[in-house]
């Protein structure tokens, strides 16, 4: 027997620092496409990989994030009654949002790397998106330690225990938000949290439009909310959710590239409009159905959260049902839960848990249909 004299590299399995294999590999493949060649089956492969898919979602989120940063500064300046100009506002908001990003990525990626290290696997790219989403769906004034705890909870119990990206059944970013909401409700709702450093300024209420949902159009109008400022996003709210314009730019990117499902987006909008319309018919509210699309987190949730390919329905028919129910449930919650009118988070999380059931029904009925198919020759 010839002895294997070739020593494994420093970071290779069996090498001196072999335990760091996953981490080094993650940075290495981040910089350079791996040299792996196909071993079985198809000898050539498409140029797309999960890194590319994820980076496109991040790219699509950038407009919402940039707008959110500016809006954080703008809302603060509105509240304190001093408007120093666009760039000052953006810079101020950037400095407020940056720590959220740092906490989200440092805590989340540390857990991802540690998990991959323990399992001896490659690091998944999924957290690149989740980590970008989380700061955009929380109030800007959320204490950083709370955010850290929420991120840790979401990554460990939302993802890693199921086996990492692709195996989870709940959207990790939404799980982080749900964790914050149920653990620290005072920091997540009401009219106090949406504007950074309000410092007791009472010039404006600071409440999001959803607060006035129960009171109808007059209350919305009296507090300065019009369809167009809610569409443009110059209103208080979670960092990234306010501007429907910025979200639509993102929607265009992920729909064009085929990363997200247009079926889910379209049916979610249809569900929200239908329930919103029924609501106005029955006299639950006098707010027109299309207002539901620009209020609160509906647009952001529909475009970036409901369409998460892992946690949404997997079958094409299932996507129609899933999306429709997300939109319909969201508006239903808005109508009947005045205490916490933001229905999008819970609607998506609930439908995440139902997505496998929807898929099961779709595939079972397809199997039955297939069994009945007769030979045409």
């Amino acid at each position: 027997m010839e002895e294997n004299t070739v020593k494994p590299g420093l970071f290779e399995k069996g090498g001196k620092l072999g335990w760091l294999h996953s981490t080094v590999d993650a940075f290495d493949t981040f910089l350079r496409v791996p040299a792996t060649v196909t071993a079985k089956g198809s000898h050539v492969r498409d140029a797309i990989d999960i890194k590319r898919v994820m980076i496109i979602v991040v790219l699509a989120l950038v407009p919402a994030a940039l707008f959110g940063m500016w809006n954080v500064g703008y809302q603060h300046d509105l509240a304190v009654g001093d408007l120093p100009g666009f760039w000052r506002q953006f810079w101020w908001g950037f400095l407020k949002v940056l720590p959220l990003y740092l906490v989200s990525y440092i805590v989340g990626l540390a857990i991802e790397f540690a998990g991959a290290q323990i399992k001896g696997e490659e690091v998944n790219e999924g957290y690149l998106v989740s980590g970008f989403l989380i700061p955009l769906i929380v109030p800007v004034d959320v204490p950083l330690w709370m955010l850290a705890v929420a991120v840790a909870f979401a990554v460990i119990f939302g993802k890693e225990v199921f086996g990492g990206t692709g195996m989870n059944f709940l959207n990790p970013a939404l799980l982080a938000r749900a964790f914050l909401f149920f653990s620290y409700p005072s920091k997540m709702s009401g009219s106090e949290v949406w504007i950074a450093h309000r410092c007791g300024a009472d010039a404006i209420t600071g409440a999001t439009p959803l607060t006035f949902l129960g009171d109808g159009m007059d209350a919305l109008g009296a507090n300065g909310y019009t369809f167009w400022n809610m569409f443009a996003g110059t209103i208080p709210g979670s960092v990234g959710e306010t501007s429907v314009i910025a979200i639509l730019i993102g929607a265009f990117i992920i729909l064009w590239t085929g990363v997200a499902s247009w079926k889910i987006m379209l049916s979610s909008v249809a569900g929200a409009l239908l329930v919103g319309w029924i609501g106005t018919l029955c006299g639950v509210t006098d707010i027109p159905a299309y207002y539901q699309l620009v209020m609160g987190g509906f647009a952001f949730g529909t475009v970036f959260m409901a369409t998460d390919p892992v946690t949404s329905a997997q079958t094409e028919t299932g996507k129609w049902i899933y999306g429709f129910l997300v939109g319909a449930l969201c508006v239903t919650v808005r109508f009947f839960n005045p205490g916490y009118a933001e229905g999008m988070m819970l609607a998506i999380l609930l439908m995440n848990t139902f997505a496998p059931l929807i898929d099961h029904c779709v595939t079972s009925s397809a199997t039955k249909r297939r069994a009945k198919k007769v030979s045409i020759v």
Partner: protein
Amino acid sequence: MKNEYICKLKKEKLSTQKIMSNKIYLKKGLNIPISGEAALETKKKIVPDVVAVKPTDFKGFSPRLLVKEGDKVLAGSPVLADKQNPDILLTSPVSGTVKEIARGEKRKLLAVLVESDGERQSVDFGAKDPSGLTAGEVKGTLLKSGLWPSIVQRPYGIIADPAVTPKAVFVSAFSTAPLAADCEYAFKDELEAVQAGITAMSRIAKVHVCVNSESSIFAKLSDATVHTVVARKHPAGNVGVQISHLSPIKKGETVWTLNLLSLAAIGKLFKTGKLVLDRKVAVTGPAAKEPAYFEALPGTPVKALAGQLDPEVEVRFISGDVLSGENIGADGYLGFFDNQLTLIKEGREREMLGWANPLRFNQFSSSMAYFSWLLPKKKYNMDTNTHGGVRAFVCSDVYGKVLPMDLFPVYLIKACLAGDIDKMEQFGIYEVLPEDLALCEFVDPSKNDIQAIISKGIDLMIKEMA
């Protein structure tokens, strides 16, 4: 007069309907734009010194040696028999001397190498008109000649069982695989042989032939029902896809499939009484020096086919197409079922920030996440790089877009991964072979070896159902 006219109209309508019912429309799929298409000219006839008989080409064949090194054989002499069914034989395509029994790990029999004497003396199986034969006579001749293993049974893609009468026999008379040999060109002189092969098979079961247009040279074949597949993309030419639209395979059913090469050989066997396996082989791929057609036998060393290659470039030799062909190495031999050799570069270079590069015009992607759609006519110099690491399934809709079958590919793949027999049945394991899901594997952003997963699932089914 008027009545007559109406009658004529009705008749015409009826006849168009009949043709219509023989058409299959397929939209889904993908053509991989790889460079190195073979020019439609036949360069020369390759007369190899050594020809290999490879039992590994036939799924479900466990070989027992019938010859030893130094034995004299004729074209058509049995070389290997199946251990389970000793009537199923593999025969030598040339006359000569058994030179070597090649074995691999654990003494697995890889190939019997026959040194050709260049004379091509054949065993005489007796020329017969196939239309006058019984099913038993056809089977007997095919078994003796060694052409029986060219009949593939579905489900599972194994050698057909001679004791079984299949529901039907299916033949695809066109190929849509990347750079595949053009059937119209490769078989233009073999039409009579293909017809005789079909006539022979029609003695056993009903034969269905799928052509890609009504003007195809195969559209006029008789003793078979001809169906037209209206489609522009791969895998419409895969016989499995065609079967799933014509007569889906259910539990307990078997169908047989043959490719045109096998039919031509069967036809020649009945017409001349001899085993003639010669075929036009397309040498293709970005690494091929001059992509063109050559005449050769199955088992021909691929080195002879490939000609002089650039020694600086590490080349992968694939018997078949880039999606489902076998990596046989530079010292390998052309497969029994193949009339294509694809040569591509091994992709061991590492691209800086490849995934982040917005343009990356030298790489092909079917996804809109890159900009290949801007260059619809471009042919790519593809290599074997995976372009990414293996991940869990993330995207859910990319697979169905390239599979024109009524299946849920990811569900089937996951059932195979889990080894869940019931779920595999439910999601259609009887209808597929790995090759049918090859495009799913190509487009998979998670870089899973989908064909290997399906193949493992099929092996499990064979074991459990035996």
